[in-house]
Structure formats: C-alpha cells, structure tokens
C-alpha cells in the first residue's frame, strides 16, 4: 500500500512544454485559514488532520521546543508529530493538563501561544487568528482523539507539481490538496511544512509562496501528515534552452536521459575526453588501479575504434576489479575488525574479516548476481537442513584445515549477523540492514516520525521484527545443539576453558586433525527483544515490510527469507536503486541521489528517469553487476572531459562533465606504490592483488598503527565501517595527507633509489659505477675467485699424492666454481653495459616515463622543457629525476581522479 503511495507521489519530470495542471481543487474543502477566519465558526477540527499539523506548522513539536525528548516547560509532543496518542495523552497529562474543557479559553494550549501566559517560545499566533480558532474550536468540541479514527492519507497532491522559473523574483504559489482514504479532499496548504532544498535556486515561505533566486535546479519539499512530497524546480542556467540548445549526440540511453535534463537546464556537456584521460579514469574507477606506463602507451597506439569498450570488458576480468568492488561491498556490509572480535572459533588464525572478504571476492570474480550475493549474506545458512551439529563441525573443520578448501566455498557468509554492533539489538539490525541493502537511513524513525520520509515510529519497530528471530553465529554452538557441543568439547578436553585459552587451543586441535566446535546461524522460535533497557520501543508481534505487507513473523520458517524475497522483487523500490546509485556515485563523485545512502523522499534524485532506467535495467539483467559497470563506463556521459565550458563549470549533480575527486584511500596507497616501483614490480602490482591495499579485508577506526599501509590508509580516510554510513569513508583532503605525500618516510623511501624502486633502475642505468647490489655481486665474484684459487692449490696437492678419487672430486669442484664465477661476472657486466642513447636522451625518456607512470599521459612540451632543465641543473641527474617523480606524485593531477 505504502509503495503505491510513494509511486503515486512521485513526480513525472517532463517539463518540456509544460502546461501547468490548474488546480483541481473543485471537490476539495476550502483551506482551513478561510474556514476558521471568523470567531463564529461552527466546525470542529480534527486532531489528526488539523490540530497536530498545526502544531507542526507553528513549530510546537520541533526539536528545540516541545518535540525535544525532554519536552519543554513540562510539556512534550512527539517530534514531528504522527504519534497522535502520545500527543493527545501529553495534552491531558494529569500533572499539568494543557486543555481545560470546562473553560476552554483558560487552556494552556490557547493561552501560551498567544503569549498571554508567559511562553518561552514567544508568541506563535494572534488571539482571534484562524490558528487560535482552530485550537479553540477543537477544545470546545471536546478536545477529542480516537486512535481508531486515524485515517490514511492516500495522496498529498501538489499543484503545480513541477515549477519552471525564468527570472529572479518571479513568484509561484504552491497549493497542497490532501486526499484521504475515504475519498474526501481538503486544501491543506496552510497546514503544510514547506522547504527548499537549495534556496540559492528558489525560496519558499511558510505559506507555500515560491520565489526565484538564482539559476539552477533543486526541489521543494512539502510535508503534511505522513506525506513528504518533492517538487522539482528548474531555472535554466543559460539561455540555451529549447530550440537554442545545440545538437548533442546521445550515443546511449544513459546519455539521452542525461542530456534531456541538461537541455532543460541550458547546460551543454563537456566534450568526450581523450584516450589517456579515459584510460586513467576507468582504470581507477573500475579496478582501483593506476594503469602502468606500458598500458598507457599501448592503449594510445591502439587503433581499434572500439578500444574503449574492449578495455572495459578486459578490466572487468581482472583481479583488481574483483578486489576493488569487494572492498566496496565490504564497506556497505560493514566488514569491521572490531565488530568481529571473538565470533569465530579460529578467529586468530583465520580472521573472520578475511573470510568475509574472500567470500564476496569469489562471487564478484565469478560475477554471481547481486541478489544471490546478498541472499548469501543475509538469508542463508551454512548448516544444511538435516545435518547434525557434529557433521557440521566436521565440515567446517575441514574448510579451515584443508588447503584446497575455503570459507568462500560455503553457501553463506554468516558473519553479517554476527556483527557485534548488532548483538542483541534488533534496532541496530534493522538500521544496518536498511543501510547496507536499501540505502536508507531509517534510524530517525526509531524515535520519531522520519522528518524526510513517510516512515513512522511504528513502521520502524514493525520492520525491526523481521530480524528478531536471528540467532547469529558465534564462537559457541547455537542453543539447540548445546548437547552435541558439550559432548564435542568434552572429547576435546577443553571443558570450562576461558575464551583466551580457547582462542589458542582450538586452532591447535584443528591442526591435529580434530573436529572442533563452530558457531552457526539459526532461527529462534521466539521473538527476541533488545537486550538494552535504554532502548525505548513499542512492542509489536508482527512484522511489516517498509511500505509493504504485514507478516506474522512467528508463522514463517525464517523471516529473513521473506525480507530477501521482498528485496529482490521487481517492484521493490530500494534494493536495485541503492546498488546502481552507489555504483553511479563511485563513477561520478555524486550519486543520482546524493548522499548515495540516503534514499528518502525529501532527497530526490537529480535525474529520476536516469535512476529508474538504471535500476530497471539492473533488475532485468538479473542483478548482473557487470551490466551496471558496462552501461555506465561505456556511456559518453562517463567519458566526458573534466574540462568545463561556460555553461557547466558549476555543475556537480547533473553529470555534464567529469568532476575531479580525490582517490579513495586504498587506491591512493596502491597508486603511490605502483607509480614509484620498478617496471617489473609495477606490472605485478597492476596485474595481481598481492600486496595491494584493495586486498586488505578488514577495517576499523581502532586498529590504526604507525606502520605499513594502516597509517597511510587512516590518513587518507579508508572506510572505518563503523556507523552504517557511506561517509565512514572520507574523500576529503587534509593537511596530513599532503604532509604524507611530501615528506613521509614511506613515500620518500619509495621515491628514492631503494631496492625495487623506479629510481633504483634509473640509477643503475645512468650511473655505471657499482650500486649496492653490484658491490655485493663484486664481493661474490671475489670470494669465488679465492675459493677457486684454493681449490686449484688442493688439486695440485692431490695430484702430487696421486689420490685419484680426490683429484676427480677437486676437478668437479673447480669446474663448478668456474661456472659460478662466470655467471657472477656476467651479471656485473649486464648492469654496467652502456645503452646506445646519449645521457640527455635518456633523461628525456625517463621524464616521459615518469609522466606515464604517475599521470598516465605524455608530458606537454612546456612540462618536458621545465623538467629537462631541472634535471640538467641538478647536481646529479638521478637526484633530479627523483625530484621529478616526487613532484609528479605531489601534483593534484596525481591524487585526483579526473
């Protein structure tokens, strides 16, 4: 039902030749400010329809006033209304009733707001105003409220439902008609709350009068009762609208939908970018990896007209693609080290974070469909029906014991529900689940009506019950297998051992070939309640899907499966959308809905048709994640240049150009490693995920440390995976990041001529004198020579003594030593051989190489000239080239994807 409500509220975005729907308010009751204008009004207002919305409109139930959880002046209303019973009870609170039925005019809710009786909140309305009469008449009518009389708002119709503005100061009046389930209609404009999502584009006053300010597009948001309705407002940025808009080719459906919006805005998209720009961008976005210098060169010389599409296909098959998008899925699902403490029997040797990562990695690599992955995470079990607990433990023991087995082989990734922040907390489970898989922040509704969405507190607490039978996998056996567990523990001789001891002993027993106990996720046969007396929640026995059906959660086998079926249903409004929107955000700096994990009604998509197209396509593809990547990466929209034009330089939400964005922490770390590594090492970093930050499984805010990647990753804002928010990952710049890049020992070590670095290779080439390694080789040769000498002396001795056996042996040894000496000398010769290029030519080609490996492009002539001059002025060309590399990784162009 609620889904239908949302859909019917959703606004169609066809603004072309918009002819405004004129108010069809003929059937509607006139507005309340007219009906209650005079004191002799006879009508009795309704608590739900009039009084509570009026409280909202007057600000009474705002957080700073009586909506505060402590209340104000001994009077507390539910924040943002919609908890009618509580509000009515509060008004009739025995200690300080706010209504006097005997003497209505003496009622505090009349006297306070006109400031007759001292009101901290000041005067809210005049005596004898319509507001005054509404409250007065309600009291005179008995000040009633009956829970069973609460009506469902079928629709809040806004007229006009889209607004096109053309000049500053232009005004448009918005009207709101409530359509109730009994068919009655009322003009509720004076009872709505109005806001503008960007008052730089349009302001809206409390009566619904819109005033144009600057150019751009945004939404107005109108709230009444449970409804929250966004209304798009557009004021073209330039005059290039309609017929004046230039011809822009739309190669794909995505491009067509983006340009459709841009045309209304008068924004012309940037040109499609060059090959070098495309390669670097798609490499970083799709695989979290910088291209190698070789890859850039090869791509630029490739003459295939479809080379971009082929590159996308090729990248989707790389391990780096699987690793980077596994990292993203680990962010969304909260693969956090701290939250998985002590949840596994073998956690110290096989961290659950790694299992989590590996399990997802395998599926991303094999392109298992997204819904199946989610099903494995939230609604599956590793213990098949009919298996005994002992058999299960045997199976799990084998998984960890045998080299050819892996946690990734198992059907379920059970640790999601083991997260400690979910422990015995159904609210946290619901909040986490909605965040991970629906891109929704429903936490507001835990305590009050969601201010930006339809969710009420009841909706939240009914939804939560779907997760109230989950018994997460822990280190111990599930309750129903306790007997078998005890038997197993007894056989193993570890009865009564403390946690720390078990952490040590269980892996050892496993290695000895024993079957050790494991946890398993199970479904409780009762409705669990949150284990925290502080949590305030209404008790419901059923479950209700958000905007969907009511389900008796005790009557189904496993409520998780009900939620899963609902999620993957073709008409689910969140599941596919959340994924495509997050993926889009990874490519474009902003989601179509932004922030990408905040799909609420007051935060509408900047391009609804585009989001709908992508989510529909994703569902039709059978939740094929690669379909989403291909569809986005192959569009011109993705391939636009970052170079802006006059019309789009300020656009960051309508995708008319590439918006520069800082590399994510892991990607930045890996890019620095690869850009500074020797050619061979750079290739291996690019082609595999060994030693890569994108292959690090866990994350946490707590396990920082000052060594290795942990330090850099924290500085660059790797997701802490702590608070059910995409904002746990930071892409903001900071001082520490630039300090790190400019002067950190780790970075300087990579830029310098140390083993395995690019500069080391340069130094070996440019400086024929032996480097440290050569010296070692030299020492080796010297040592072999002296051994050879000694062996020859021995040989002479044995020959004199006619000891044939020893002579033969010594001869064999001599020939062996000679061979080794030759090899050793040859290797010195190899690094000291002079190539044919002159020194200057070499410097130039190294500068070009440095550009290719960092900025993934050839230097411009001016850059090359400056760089060559710098190296020539340097005391030492190697040092000069080191500085060039240092400068390049410190450019904004390096640390930014563009």
């Amino acid at each position: 039902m609620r889904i239908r409500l949302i859909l019917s509220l959703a606004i169609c975005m066809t603004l072309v030749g918009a002819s405004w729907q004129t108010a069809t308010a003929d059937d509607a009751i006139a507005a309340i400010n007219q009906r209650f204008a005079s004191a002799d009004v006879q009508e009795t207002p309704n608590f739900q329809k009039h009084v509570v919305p009026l409280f909202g409109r007057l600000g009474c139930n705002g957080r700073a006033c009586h909506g505060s959880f402590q209340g104000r002046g001994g009077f507390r209303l539910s924040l943002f209304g919609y908890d009618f019973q509580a509000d009515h009870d509060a008004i009739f609170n025995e200690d300080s009733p706010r209504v006097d039925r005997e003497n209505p005019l003496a009622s505090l809710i009349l006297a306070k707001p006109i400031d007759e009786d001292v009101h901290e909140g000041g005067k809210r309305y005049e005596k004898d105003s319509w507001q005054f009469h509404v409250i007065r008449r309600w009291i005179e009518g008995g000040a009633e409220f009956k829970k069973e009389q609460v009506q469902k708002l079928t629709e809040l119709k806004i007229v006009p439902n889209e607004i096109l503005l053309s000049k500053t100061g232009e005004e448009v009046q918005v009207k709101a008609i409530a359509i109730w389930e009994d068919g009655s209609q009322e003009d509720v404009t004076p009872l709505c709350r109005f806001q503008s999502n960007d008052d730089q584009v349009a302001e809206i006053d409390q009566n619904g009068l819109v005033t144009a300010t600057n150019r751009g597009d945004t939404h107005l948001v109108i709230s009444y009762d449970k409804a929250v309705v966004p209304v798009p407002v557009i004021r073209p940025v330039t005059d290039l609208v309609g017929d004046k808009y230039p011809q822009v080719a739309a190669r794909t459906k995505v491009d067509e939908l983006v340009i459709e919006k841009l045309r209304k805005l008068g924004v012309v998209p940037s040109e499609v970018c060059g090959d070098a720009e495309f390669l670097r961008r798609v490499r970083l976005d799709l695989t979290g990896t910088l291209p190698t210098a070789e890859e850039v060169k090869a791509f630029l010389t490739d003459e295939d007209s479809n080379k971009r599409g082929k590159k996308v296909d090729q990248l989707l098959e790389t391990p780096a693609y699987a690793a980077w998008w596994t990292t993203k899925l680990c962010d969304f699902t909260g693969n956090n080290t701290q939250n998985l403490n002590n949840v596994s029997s073998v956690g110290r040797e096989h961290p659950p974070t790694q299992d989590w990562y590996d399990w997802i990695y395998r599926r991303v690599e094999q392109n298992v469909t997204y819904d199946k992955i989610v099903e494995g995470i939230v609604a599956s079990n590793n213990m098949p029906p009919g298996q005994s607990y002992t058999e299960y433990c045997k199976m799990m023991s084998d998984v960890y014991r045998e080299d050819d087995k892996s946690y990734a082989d198992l059907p379920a990734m059970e640790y999601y529900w083991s997260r400690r922040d979910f422990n015995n907390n159904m609210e946290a489970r619901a909040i986490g689940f909605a965040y991970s898989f629906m891109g929704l922040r429903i936490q507001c509704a835990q305590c009050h009506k969601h201010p930006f969405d339809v969710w009420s507190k009841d909706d939240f607490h009914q939804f939560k019950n779907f997760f109230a039978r989950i018994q997460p996998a822990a280190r111990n056996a599930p309750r129903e297998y306790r007997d078998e567990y005890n038997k197993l523990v007894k056989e193993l001789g570890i009865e009564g051992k403390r946690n720390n001891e078990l952490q040590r002993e269980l892996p050892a027993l496993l290695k000895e070939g024993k079957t050790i106990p494991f946890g398993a996720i199970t479904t409780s046969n009762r409705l669990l309640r949150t284990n925290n007396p502080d949590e305030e929640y209404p008790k419901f026995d059923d479950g209700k899907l958000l905007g969907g059906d009511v389900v008796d959660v005790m009557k189904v086998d496993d409520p998780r499966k009900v939620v899963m079926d609902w999620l993957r249903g073709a008409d689910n409004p969140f599941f596919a959308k959340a994924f495509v929107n997050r993926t889009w955000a990874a490519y474009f700096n902003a989601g179509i809905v932004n922030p990408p994990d905040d799909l609420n009604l007051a935060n509408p998509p900047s391009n609804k048709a585009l989001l709908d197209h992508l989510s529909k396509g994703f569902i039709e593809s059978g939740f094929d994640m690669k379909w989403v990547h291909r569809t986005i990466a192959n569009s011109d929209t993705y391939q636009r240049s970052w170079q802006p034009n006059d019309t789009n330089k300020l656009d960051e939400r309508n995708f008319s150009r590439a918006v520069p964005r800082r590399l994510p922490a892991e990607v930045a770390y890996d890019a620095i490693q690869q850009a500074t590594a020797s050619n061979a090492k750079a290739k291996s970093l690019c082609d595999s995920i060994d030693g890569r930050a994108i292959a690090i499984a866990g994350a946490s805010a707590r396990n920082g440390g000052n060594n290795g990647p942990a330090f850099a990753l924290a500085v660059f804002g790797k997701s802490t995976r702590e608070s059910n928010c995409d904002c746990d990952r930071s892409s903001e710049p900071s001082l520490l990041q630039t300090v790190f890049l400019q002067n950190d020992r780790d970075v300087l070590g990579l830029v310098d001529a140390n083993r395995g670095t690019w500069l080391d290779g340069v130094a070996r080439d440019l400086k024929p004198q032996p480097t440290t390694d050569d010296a070692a080789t030299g020492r080796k040769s010297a040592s072999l020579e002296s051994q050879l000498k000694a062996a020859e002396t021995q040989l002479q001795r044995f020959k004199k003594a006619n000891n044939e056996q020893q002579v033969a042996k010594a001869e064999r040894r001599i020939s062996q030593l000679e061979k080794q000496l030759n090899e050793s000398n040859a290797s010195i010769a190899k690094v000291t051989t002079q190539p044919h290029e002159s020194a200057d030519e070499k410097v130039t080609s190294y500068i070009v190489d440095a550009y290719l490996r960092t900025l993934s492009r050839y230097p411009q002539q001016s850059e090359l000239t400056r760089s060559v001059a710098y190296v020539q002025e340097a005391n030492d060309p190697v040092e000069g080239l080191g500085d060039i590399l240092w400068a390049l990784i410190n450019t904004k162009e390096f640390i930014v994807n563009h």
Partner: protein
Amino acid sequence: MRIHKTCDGVKRRDFLKVGVLGGAGLSLASYLRLLEAGEVAEKSRGMSAIFVNLPGGPSHMDTFDLKPNAPTEFRGTFNPIDTNVPGIQISEHLPKLAGCMDKFVILRGVSHTLGAHALGQEYVNCGSRPLPSLEYPGYGAVVVKETEQNNPTDLPSFVAVPNNTQQRPGFLGVKYAPLNTGDTPKAGQPFSVRGISLQGGLTVAQVEKRQGLLSDLDATFRAVEEDSQLLEGLDRFSEQAHSIITSKRSRDAFDISKESPAFAEPFGADPFGLSCLLATRLVESGVRFITLQLGGWDTHQDNWTRLSKGNGRSPGLLPQLDTGLSSLLNGLEQKGLLESTAIFVTGEFGRTPKINTRSAEGGRDHYPRCMFMLQAGGSVRGGQAIGESDEKASMPANEGFTPDDVAASFYHNVGIDPAKEYQTNTGRPITIVRDGSVIRKMFA
C-alpha cells in the same frame, strides 16, 4: 550543490550564519545570555589544551582517592600524604604532585558504567557515551575545529605523542585527526617526527627547489581550481604542508634539546616525562591540542608493585606520572602558559575497591562506577578536591559526576560551549557533549 538538512530542516548554510557566534540554533541574544551566565568563556582564542591519557584504567584508591580506614580487603598498602593544600591528601608515591596540589583539581566520584577498555576509552576521550550509530569526535578534533581560523599555518594544530587512536575525529572527518609523532623524544636529542622532520639528509634549500618544481608542474587544474572545493583545498594543504616542513618554528617546536638543562632536568629521562617536556614546547610554539600517554594501568595483578616500583621491565607508574605531570604543571607555569592551557588527565575507569586475590600480591579489576579525573590550567582554581566517594571508594558519596560533566567543564575551560550543536554527515544534530553540565566549583 545540495544543501544537506538536519532532522530539523535547518540547513548547513544556516549553521554557517550563526557559526561565527559559536553555535547553531543559538540566536545572538541567547548567546549573550550564555556569556553572561559564564556558559561560554571569552578567551577561547588563546587557549591550548593537553589531554593526558592513562590507558588501562588507574586505580583511584591507590592514587588520588585513598581510603586509609577502609577494611584490609579494600584498603591497599599505600599510605596517604599531605599535600601543599591543607586537608587534601594523595598517595605517598606522588610526592611531587603533592607539592603542587595548588595547581590542579582532583575530581573524585566520577562514575560511569562501561567496564571494557575500548568503550571506556572512547567515552572518556569524547565525553559522550559511545553509540553504535555514531562516532563522537574526541576533544582534540573539536578544539581544533573550533579554533581553526586562529591556528598557525606552519604548525600542525593537533599533535599526539606518541599516538592516540582513541581520540578520533569521528563524524568531523579525517582533517581533524592528530599528527602522530609515532615515538617519544629522547633526553637532550632533537626529536625526529614523521612527516615533519626533514628526512634522509634533505636540506631546506633542496626542499624549496623541489617545491618550485612542483608548483611549476602542478598547473593542469589551475584555471578551474576556484570552482572546486577539492582542488582548492588540496592546494591550500599543499602550501601548508610545505611551510610546516620547512619552517624553523615547527622544527624548533619538536626539538626538546633546545630547552635549557635547568628547565628540562625536572622532567627526568622517562618517555612520559620527556613527552611532557615536549608538550610544554609545543604549547609555547602555538600547537593547539596535544595528547600524551602513559599506559600500563591495567593492574589486575601485582597492583602495588607495578604502581610504586615497577616490575623490572618498566619503572613504577606512579613515579613516572608524578615526575611528568608535576613538571608539566610547573613548567607551564614557569613559561607563563598555565593560565592559557587546559589540562585533562584521565584513564578509562577506576579499579575495584575490593582487592582480588588471584595473585600473591593481589590486584584490582576494571571499575567504572568510581574513578578520579584531574583538571588543571586555564581558569581552573587549583588546590581543590571536588566530589567524594563513599567510605570504600565504591561509588560516589553524593551525586557524583559523569564523564560528560567533566567533558563539559573541560570544554568550558577551553572556551567552547559544550552545548554547541554540530550536524553529523547523516544530518543528525548532535551537541558536542550530550548530557554533561559544567562543574561550577572547578572554576569558583
């Protein structure tokens, strides 16, 4: 381009409008009222702060809240001694602090309910009980954010010695994270700090030359920088990083060998004492917030040996604390900085009044219900013991204080309104300290 809203529909831009007045949701009038009521100190601009973390949870009964008359199974072996403030006694192993009791306040009967190290640490490092849905920013991040405009650009504003993983920037974001020195200084030696000190024999001249090259090569985005917050920010930070790395002030700030031997001598040679010495230099140079650390207080066993003499591997905890903290207070006073530096000393909890008998000597376990905290500097009126625990130091005797109250008082001391509102990235309005109220007596 979208302005994100809070739950109240207040937009970010509105926050900016009132931001300069010290608080969202605060009208000028209400702000002035608060000022009058002493809720907001006026001198925040010149304040620095030092947070001394004692991870592990120091025993309150053996340090600043002794109960010599408690039964044997509670009392412990240490005796109280008089301090330079009549009527206040502390442990006999803190003689130097006893000699400067007039410079600090002991808060007794601070109480909370989080008995695990990580959670307790998180709590006392931000003053709000940890929530699963939200990470509160620690003191350092808030102080730096609030003083941002006035902080020197050639120095880091927030330094953690040697590091601090508990004071996190939370929802304020990584740009408010501390610079970790990664190590503690050595007596009489210049201190090399990761990222700040010039590495591998680089000279300032070389760095300048390199920087010149960078600014020539870093031109790709020049034309569009002013339209992008990111590019502009990167540019600004790049310049600041360079000026920190090359500035004499920043190198000098970390170089404790530049202190006169007479000044440095009382700090001793322990890492903690030398960290305290470094802190006085950093404050003097203009660093806004410093965290110091002395760990090892988790004395489940051998409580008294570990506190007094140490167990061979490490020296006694109390002598280290005594030397470091007393020198810090005296040193700041000598430099004339005590009045402009707020100091906060705490562990994550106290320890069980009843002695456990699991080891020969006995020990004390985690105990958040009753603990001590110390405050000094700024407008704190030293020489007081505020609050009281019951006769066995097992709970506050009266109402007691929460870590939130102490946090509110600390912010008050630094000149920041603890009730100021921030909004999280999810648009939730959050006051800096959730529940605390300022302990007036500290300042009276």
